[in-house]
C-alpha cells in the first residue's frame, strides 16, 4: 500500500501513514494533539489545520469560513492525505500538553491543580479540615517474629499473621500464593527481620508484600482524579500524610471525543476500547513516573493508587466495556469496583501495589462526585447544602447529614471552553475576566498569565455575558442588540460581539463572542440551575432553604459569583453562602488514599445518595425551558438582578 509522510508544524513531528488516512488519525499517530469534540465525525469543526504543502482530498464542510478556506484551512478529520505533505496546526486547534501546563503552574486558575492541596485558594476550610483517622490504603509494618521452636511450631504464615495482629484488630487477613511460596526462605534469609506491606482490600487486609529488613520509611501513594478533560495526580507520603507533589495533564482520550458519550460510542469497537484504555493508563503512568523521579523515588516505593473519575472514566481505566452505560436503563458494570492490583490495570507502581476506585452512585454520577462530597463535608452538614460541579457533566448534589440526592445535568463542555467559537480551556492566554465600559464602548480584558488573548475560557464567558447584559448590549433571550454598540456586527455565524481585534490577539484573527456561543452558555447554565431546582422541588424545598452552596471544578476558583448569579447560573443567594472548593474530587481521593475511614465514608456517601434521572422528571423540561432566559423567565427568582436591570 502506498504510504505518505506527513510533517506537522510547528513541532516538525513526522509520521508515515498509509495513503488515504485522515489527518486527525495521522496526527494522533504522530503524537500531535488536535482539538476535536465530536470524535472525528466532522461535526464540531474544531480540528482546523492548514495545508502548507501537498495534495489532499477534503470533503466539503460548512464549518470553515470563506476566509479560512482561502488560507488553506481544512478539517483534519474530513481530509485524507495523498503523498508527502506538510500540515500546520494553528494555535486555536492545538491541545497543549503537559509541558505547557506545568509552565503555567502559577496562573491563578490552576492554583488548585498544581500546588499541594493545602494551598488551594479559597474554601480549604471546609474541604481540608475534615480529618479522618489515619489508615492509608497501604501500610508498612516492620516485624521481628520469633523464630519457630519445637514448642512454638505454628507455620511461617500464621507466625507472620500473629506478629501483625499483636495489638491490632484485623479480623480478615490474606496473603497471595506468590508471597507464600517465597515466605519461608525470605524469613530465614532476612534473619526474621522483615517489612510487611498491608493493603486494604475492602473488608479484607492483604499482606501485599514481604520484604527483608526495614523499609517502612518508603511508603508512598498516588491520588488521581480522572476528569473527562483533565487528569490530576498527587504524590502522597502515606505515613506522613503529606502531599509531596502534584501534576496534571489533559486526558488524552480527548483526542477521541470530548464528552463521555462520544467516547462510549468510540469504545464500541474492541480495539478502540483498548486504545482509550491505553492512552489514559499511559498518561497516569507518565504523571506518576514524573513525580517519582522528581522526589528520588523508585516506582517500587509507591504502594497504592486511589482513583476517582466519572463512571465512564473508571470503566475505561479498567478496560471494562462501557457500552451499557449509554443504553436504557443505563446500568454500569460496577459502581463499587473492588480494590485490585494496580498492575492488573497497567498502572506501573510496586508490582504488588493496590488500585482503589472511589465508588460511584450511578452511570452518570461517578466516584469523582462521591469524592467531592466527601471533601466538601456536605454529608456532615446539619443544615441544607448544595454541591455543584461545574464540569462537562454538571453534577448537582443536594442534602445534609441525613440524606443526599443527586443528578447529572449534562451541562455540556462550555464551562471548559467547548462548543464556543473562540472557547479554550483555562490555559495561558485565556480571557477570564471581561469588563465593558458602556459609555465608551470599551472592553477591558484580563487573561490568564497576562499574555495576549488566545481565546475565552468558561469563567470569561460567564463574565462576558453578564457584562453584555448589564451594559444593555444583550437582551434577556441572549440576543445581541446591534444598535447598542459598534462592536456588534454580523459575522459568518450570525451576530457577534467583538472582544479583541486581530492585531491585539495571539491568533491573528478577531476574537468574538457569537450569539450561538451565548446560546450554548444559556443552555449550560439553564441545565445546572434547573437540575438543582428539580432536586430541591423533589424534596419539597427551595433555594432559600440552602445554608451553603459548594462550587467545585477547575473553573470555580476564577468564577465571579455575582456575575454567575446575574446570568442565572447560580441561585440568587447572599455571596457568603457560596464556598469555592476547587478540585474537590482530588481532595476527596487523597482523603481516601490516606484513610480507610474516609474510604468507608465514601462508600456510605455513594450508597446513600439517591440518583434522580432528570430524563424521567416531567418537571425538568418545564424548568429547563424557563431557565433558558437571562437570568430566568421568572425574574422574581432573581431579585438582585431585577434591581440591577430594572
Amino acid at each position, binding site marked *: 500500500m502506498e504510504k505518505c509522510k506527513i510533517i506537522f508544524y510547528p513541532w516538525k513531528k513526522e509520521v508515515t501513514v498509509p495513503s488515504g488516512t485522515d489527518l486527525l488519525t495521522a496526527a494522533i499517530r504522530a503524537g500531535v494533539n488536535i482539538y476535536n469534540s465530536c470524535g472525528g465525525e466532522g461535526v464540531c469543526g474544531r480540528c482546523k489545520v492548514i495545508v502548507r504543502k501537498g495534495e489532499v482530498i477534503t470533503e466539503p464542510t460548512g464549518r470553515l469560513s470563506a476566509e479560512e478556506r482561502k488560507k488553506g484551512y481544512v478539517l483534519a478529520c474530513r481530509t485524507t492525505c495523498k503523498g508527502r505533505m506538510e500540515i500546520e496546526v494553528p494555535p486555536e486547534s492545538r491541545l497543549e500538553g503537559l509541558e505547557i501546563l506545568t509552565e503555567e503552574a502559577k496562573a491563578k486558575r490552576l492554583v488548585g491543580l498544581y500546588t499541594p492541596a493545602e494551598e488551594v485558594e479559597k474554601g480549604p476550610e471546609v474541604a481540608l479540615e475534615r480529618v479522618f483517622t489515619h489508615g492509608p490504603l497501604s501500610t508498612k509494618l516492620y516485624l521481628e517474629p520469633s523464630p519457630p521452636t519445637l514448642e512454638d511450631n505454628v507455620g511461617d504464615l500464621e507466625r507472620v499473621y500473629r506478629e501483625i495482629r499483636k495489638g491490632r484488630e484485623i479480623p480478615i487477613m490474606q496473603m497471595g500464593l506468590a508471597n507464600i511460596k517465597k515466605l519461608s526462605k525470605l524469613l530465614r534469609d532476612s534473619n526474621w527481620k522483615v517489612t510487611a506491606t498491608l493493603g486494604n482490600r475492602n473488608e479484607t487486609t492483604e499482606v501485599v508484600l514481604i520484604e527483608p529488613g526495614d523499609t517502612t520509611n518508603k511508603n508512598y501513594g498516588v491520588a488521581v482524579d480522572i476528569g473527562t478533560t483533565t487528569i490530576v495526580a498527587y504524590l502522597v507520603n502515606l505515613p506522613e500524610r503529606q502531599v509531596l507533589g502534584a501534576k496534571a495533564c489533559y486526558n488524552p482520550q480527548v483526542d477521541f471525543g470530548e464528552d463521555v458519550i462520544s467516547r462510549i460510542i468510540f469504545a464500541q469497537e474492541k480495539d478502540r476500547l483498548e486504545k482509550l484504555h491505553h492512552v489514559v493508563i499511559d498518561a497516569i503512568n507518565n504523571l506518576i513516573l514524573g513525580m517519582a523521579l522528581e522526589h528520588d523515588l523508585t516506582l517500587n516505593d509507591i504502594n497504592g493508587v486511589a482513583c476517582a473519575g466519572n463512571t465512564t472514566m473508571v470503566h475505561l481505566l479498567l478496560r471494562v466495556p462501557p457500552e451499557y452505560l449509554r443504553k436504557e436503563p443505563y446500568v454500569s458494570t460496577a459502581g463499587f469496583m473492588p480494590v485490585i492490583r494496580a498492575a492488573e490495570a497497567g498502572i506501573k507502581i510496586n508490582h504488588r501495589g493496590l488500585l482503589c476506585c472511589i465508588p460511584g452512585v450511578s452511570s452518570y454520577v461517578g466516584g469523582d462526585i462521591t469524592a467531592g462530597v466527601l471533601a466538601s463535608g456536605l454529608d456532615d452538614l446539619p443544615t441544607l447544602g448544595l454541591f455543584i460541579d461545574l464540569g462537562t457533566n454538571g453534577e448537582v448534589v443536594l442534602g445534609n447529614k441525613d440524606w443526599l440526592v443527586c443528578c447529572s445535568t449534562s451541562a455540556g463542555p462550555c464551562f471548559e471552553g467547548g462548543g464556543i467559537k473562540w472557547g479554550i480551556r483555562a490555559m495561558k492566554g485565556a480571557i477570564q475576566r471581561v469588563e465593558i465600559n458602556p459609555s465608551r464602548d470599551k472592553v477591558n480584558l484580563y487573561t490568564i498569565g497576562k499574555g495576549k488573548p488566545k481565546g475565552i475560557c468558561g469563567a470569561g464567558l460567564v463574565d462576558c455575558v453578564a457584562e453584555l447584559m448589564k451594559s444593555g448590549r444583550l*437582551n*434577556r*433571550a441572549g440576543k445581541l442588540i446591534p444598535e447598542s454598540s459598534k462592536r456588534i456586527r454580523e459575522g459568518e455565524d450570525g451576530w457577534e460581539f467583538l472582544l479583541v481585534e486581530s492585531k491585539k490577539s495571539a491568533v491573528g484573527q478577531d476574537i468574538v463572542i457569537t450569539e450561538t456561543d451565548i446560546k450554548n452558555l444559556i443552555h449550560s447554565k439553564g441545565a445546572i440551575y434547573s437540575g438543582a431546582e428539580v432536586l430541591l422541588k423533589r424534596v419539597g424545598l427551595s433555594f432559600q432553604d440552602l445554608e451553603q452552596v459548594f462550587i467545585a471544578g477547575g473553573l470555580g476558583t476564577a468564577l465571579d459569583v455575582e456575575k454567575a448569579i446575574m446570568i442565572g447560573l447560580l441561585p440568587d443567594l447572599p455571596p457568603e453562602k457560596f464556598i469555592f472548593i476547587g478540585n474537590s474530587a482530588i481532595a476527596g481521593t487523597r482523603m481516601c488514599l490516606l484513610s480507610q475511614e474516609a474510604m468507608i465514608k465514601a462508600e456510605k456517601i455513594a450508597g446513600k445518595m439517591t440518583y434522580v434521572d432528570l430524563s424521567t422528571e416531567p418537571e425538568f423540561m*418545564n424548568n429547563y*425551558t*424557563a431557565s*433558558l*432566559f437571562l437570568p430566568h*423567565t*421568572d425574574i422574581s427568582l432573581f431579585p438582585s438582578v431585577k434591581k440591577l436591570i430594572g
Partner: protein
Amino acid sequence: MEKATEKWASKVNELIIGATQKEGGTRNSLIKVGGATTLPFLHFEGVIPNPPVIAMEVWDMEPPDWPAVLKEPFGEVLGDPVEWAKKCINEYGANFLCLRLASTHPDTKNNSPEEAAATVKKVLEVVSVPLMIIGCNQAEKDTEVIPAVSEAARGDNCLVGIAVEANYKTITAACQSDGHSIIAESPIDINLAKQLNILISDMGFSPEKIIMHPATGALGYGLEYTYSIMERSRLAALQGDKMMSMPMVNFVGQEAWRAKEAKASEQEIPEWGPIASRGPLWEVTTAVSYLQAGADILVMCHPKAIDSVKKVIEELMKKE
C-alpha cells in the same frame, strides 16, 4: 351544600380592538376581549365580562389548499378580499374579520408590502368592523410587509401579527408607532410564551396590548397537550403573573382544515361519513375545546361552523 369556589388574585387583561371616530378611528363598532377573573365559564366563581369572540378569515387571494366544501359558501368572492369581507359581514353576520395577507408569501404571489398595504386600505374603506391583520406567516417576509400594512391601518387599533421570536422587534415597533395591538406567537410552551411577552414588553410596548397565540393545533393533532398549556397559561394569569395575563387567540380554521379528517374525500375513506358536514364539525369541535381551555379569540373559516360555535358560546355564557 356549599359551593367550593376559588378566589383568584388577578385577572386576564382586558383589550379593545378597533377604534371609532371618537377614538380617532374609522370603525363603527369595537371588540372587547379578556377581563375574566376565573377559569372559562365558571360564572359561579368569578366574572367573565366579555364572551369569547370569533374573527372570520378573509384572504387577499384565493386560498390554494382549501377543499371544495370550504370554498363553496364563498363562491365567486374568493380572490377578492373586499367582496369577501362584505359577504362575511352581510351574509354571515361577522362582526370581526381576520385579513390574511397570504399573497405576500414568496411561495404564492410574493406580492409587495405596498400591494398588501393597498389591500388593507381598501378593506378598511369598505367594511367598518374591527380588523385583525396577519401577514403570510413567513417571519422574514412579514418583517417587510407588516410595517407597511400597519401604517396603512394607522389609527384603527387593529390586532396585528404574527410576531414570533425571529421578527418580533420589527412588528412590535410597527404596532407601537401605529397604535395597534400585537399577536405574539410561541410554540406551545408556557415559558416560551412568557419569554416573548417579556421581550416585547422590554421594548416599551404595553403588555396590555399583547394577545398570545400558543401555536395550537387541531383536534387529533396534539390537542390535549395544547389544551393543558392554555389552561396553565390562564391559571398563571389568574395567579397574578403579569407577563402571562394576556388574552389568547387560536387559529382554529387554519388548523382544522389542514387535517386529513376534514379534507379526505368520501371515496377515499367512506366510513368517515359525508364530507359536507365532516369538515365543519372538525372545526367546531376544535373551537369548542379551545373555548374550554381559555381562548378569547377564535379565528374561523366555515360559516356553518361559526354559526354552531356562536350558539355554543351563547349557551356557555348563560349564568344559570
